[in-house]
Structure formats: C-alpha cells, structure tokens
C-alpha cells in the first residue's frame, strides 16, 4: 500500500476519500435519523443536470453540480412543504427532470463528453487537485453549519412539529439540512458518482446508529467507517483493477452484512456498550 502512494493521483485519491468520509459521515447520520434517504437519492440524481450544465458551459462539471443540487434540494423541500403533493411523488418527478435536463445539456454541448461515466459511477483515481480544494471548502461549510445548528437539527429529526411549537424555525432548518445534503453529494461525486452516492450516505450511518445512542459519537463512528470503506475499496480496486466507485460501494455493503452477522451473535455489541 505504501509504495503506491508515490503516485500523485493515488495521494489525491486518498485525500479525496478522507474528505468525502468527513462529509458523508456527518450528513449521512442526519439522512438516516431524519429518514430522508430517498429525498437525498432524488437530489443526487437530479444533480446530473448540473453535470450536463457544466459540459454545456465548458466549466468543471462538479462546479455545475453545486447550484443544481442546491436548487433541486430547495425544489423538493419547498414543493413538499407548500403543496399537498405526496413527498415521494415530488421526489420522483424532480429526480427524472434533473437527469433528463442533464442528457439534453450534454447533447447540446459541442463534441463528445469524455469522462461522463466517471461522474455517474465515480472515478476517484482521476480527482484533480482543484476538486480537492473544492471538497475541503465544502467540508468546512458542512462542519461549521452542523456545529452551529447541532441541537436544532437533533430536535428537527426527533419531532419536527414539537420543535416548531417551541419556536424553532423548522421550515428553514429543513431547507438548510437539504442544502447540506446537496453539498455532501457534490463532495461524493468524485468518489462514487451520483448513482452510487446513497451507499456512503446510508451504510456507515446505519451501522454506527446500532453501535451508539449518542449523536456525536455516531458521527465520529460514521466518519471512521466510511474512511475504512472508501480507502479499502480504493486499494482493492487498484490491486485487482476494478471500477473504484463500484468497489467502494460493494465493500460498504459487505461491511454492513458482516456487521449484521456479528451483531446477531451480539459479540461486537457488548464490546461497545
């Protein structure tokens, strides 16, 4: 493992994996306890429109995703809060609308979209340094917002109606949370791609949820677990030449299965609690 670190692309990949683990470790916890897994899936897929927009405008597609994923997060949030449409219906429509827009944008852009596959399924080995900077900035934003609104987010996830009654501006808080999910998706695109984002948002958080009942510990455990999954997935994919994003996802799911089997024999449980 050490000797492969002499390559710059490998060092970048490793740093990217760790930066992504911070974002998805923290936000994944809220995605799981607030039960917005499918909203997050919708935002992730709708962000494909942003990739297409990036190609069309000739800028870094990841930069195109930032406004697009935030717009779809707010779109889902506002439509589901302001209308009587069922939330899953809204999600379904925005999900496909974003993807359709992406396809149209890419079709309109001149020439051929070379690394489209990488945005869909991740290409951690080709992360440029500029994306590492973007990921670090987004990590800082995510950490600061969660640090400031920690109690409010907990109350929002536990009992939204009660939080409204005591005077917490839950509607805005919910929008902020969805925007953080959108930013996390941007951070994760390079690692696993928009199609596979949900694995890193759900698996580490749902394992750590069973290990601890303290939200802060849960975040730390999730960050640790997603680092383990993404770094070992990266290493396996490098060694036996597999697609990196898909390998990371399968390692995560494999980790979840092993954990569930262990938990059944309840050994690991007694070690932690």
């Amino acid at each position, binding site marked *: 493992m050490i000797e492969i670190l002499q390559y710059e692309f490998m060092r970048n990949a490793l740093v990217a994996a760790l930066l992504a683990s911070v974002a998805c470790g923290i936000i994944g916890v809220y995605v799981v306890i607030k039960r917005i897994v499918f909203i997050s899936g919708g935002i992730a897929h709708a962000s494909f429109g942003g990739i297409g927009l990036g190609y069309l405008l000739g800028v870094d597609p990841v930069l195109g995703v930032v406004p697009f994923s935030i717009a779809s997060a707010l779109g889902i949030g506002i439509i589901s809060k302001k209308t009587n449409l069922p939330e899953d219906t809204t999600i379904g429509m925005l999900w496909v609308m974003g993807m359709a827009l992406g396809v149209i944008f890419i079709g309109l852009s001149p020439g051929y979209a070379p690394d489209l596959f990488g945005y869909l399924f991740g290409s951690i080995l080709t992360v440029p340094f500029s994306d590492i900077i973007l990921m670090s900035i987004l990590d800082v934003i995510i950490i600061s917002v969660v640090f400031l609104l920690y109690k409010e987010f907990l109350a929002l996830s536990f009992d939204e109606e009660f939080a409204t009654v005591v005077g917490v501006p839950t509607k805005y808080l919910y929008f902020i949370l969805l925007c953080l999910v959108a930013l996390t998706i941007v951070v994760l695109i390079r690692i696993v791609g928009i199609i596979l984002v949900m694995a890193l948002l759900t698996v580490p958080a749902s394992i750590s949820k069973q290990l601890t009942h*303290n939200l802060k510990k849960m975040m730390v455990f999730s960050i640790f677990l997603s680092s383990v999954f993404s770094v070992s997935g990266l290493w396996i994919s490098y060694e036996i030449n597999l697609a990196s994003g898909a390998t990371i996802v399968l390692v995560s799911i494999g980790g979840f299965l092993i954990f569930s089997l262990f938990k059944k024999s309840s050994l690991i449980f007694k070690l932690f609690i």
Partner: protein
Amino acid sequence: MEELIKLKDVWVYYDKSICALEGVNLSIYKQDFLGIIGPNGGGKTTLLKVILGLVKPAQGKVEVLGDVPEKSRKFIGYVPQFVLFDRDFPASVWDVVLMGRLGQRGWGKRYSNEDKKAAVEALKKVGMFEFKDRQIGKLSGGEQQRVLVARALVSQPKILLLDEPMANIDTSMRAEFYELLEELRSKIAIVLVSHDLSAISIYVNKIACLNRKLFYHDSKEITAKELEEIYQCPIELIAHGVPHRVLKEHGK
C-alpha cells in the same frame, strides 16, 4: 378570571372539503383543567393544533394570551400524541427534555445553566430524573409519555395541552399521572383531550365534547343527549365522578 385562550366561530377544513371543526367557540381561563372528549376523528387533535397555530382555520378567530397563536405558542407546553417509531434514535432523555428550551435562545447558542436547571426540575417533577441518561427509545410507553410531559414543562408554560396522554399509561399509573396534573394546575391551565370517557378523571373541573361541533357549557356537565349526538350511538351513562360528578344523575 384571566382568559388565556379564545376561539370564536372557528371552522377548519381539510383538503377544502372535509370539515374537521364546525363553528367552535371556546374560552379557557387561568387555572382551568378542561377535559375534551369525543370519538376518534372528531377533531380533537385538530383543535389543539389550531390553538398552537399549526393548523389555520378557514374562518373564525383564535387568540392565545391576547395574540396570534404563532406568537404565543412558546408559552404553551405541548404533549403530542407521539409514537417513537425509531427505537434506536440517538437521543437521551436529557437531550429530549432540553429540546423544550430551544425556542428561548438564538440559533447556535449552547444550553445555559438556567436551561439545565429547568430540565432537572422538570424531570424531577415527572419522576424521571434517574432516567436522564437513558436512551429515549429504550423506555416504556408510559415512561416516554412522562418525558414528553417534562419536555413540555421545561419551558415553564402558562398553558399545557395534552393529546391522548393516557393512551400509553396503564390504569394503575393514571391516578399518579392525574395527581401530577392536579399539582400543576395551580400555575398552569390544562387542556386534555381523549377519546376515552373513562380517561377523564374526577380531577378535571370542566368538560367539553367534540365531534366537529364543540359542546361546552363552561362547567362539568354534559347531557346524555349531547353525548349521543357526539358518539352517534346510544350511550349508557355511568357516573364515575365521586365526589365530583361528571354526568348528571340518572337511572330512573
């Protein structure tokens, strides 16, 4: 007597056509302990949500502490009909009770010593202080209910609204729970709704019936005719109010 809540000719519709509340008039005064009974789907929860400003009436006026509900609801302690689906939810009893103090500070501020003192007091009042580090999902339904009462009390409200509070509390615990409410009543007006006639105890000092329309005489009496209209079936009156009588004498 100071009027805390005033509803005047309140109408509520769901989906623009389903009527949930029909011309409800209600005044709640300081030191009232009002029990509202009515069948399931009769609008009891809706009525509480109107008082809290969570549901907007299509017509009519709602005043809480002389202001619109949205502004006054921070003075209301709300105990919702709450079912915790997620037994693994990462919050302790202590976390949950402190949530009741969230409205009293700006965003991003930590809980003050005053908040923590209020939380200790509220937990002691409901007899759950020893459980403060317990994870909320690991408590029984009745214990969770008491934590939710503490969460409502921690903001030192002027009014307490309880939605079906007895649903999770077994009969032997009910008396104890009512004694707690009776003790609170000297400082806080209490409104308790329930579909179960027998859950309304001798402690309430006023009683109302709700099935879209509200029957309320600002007293502790309801008639058999009203009850039958509300439940839409013959009701056998069994007075359990000793020494206070909820129902009129009957049986001739």
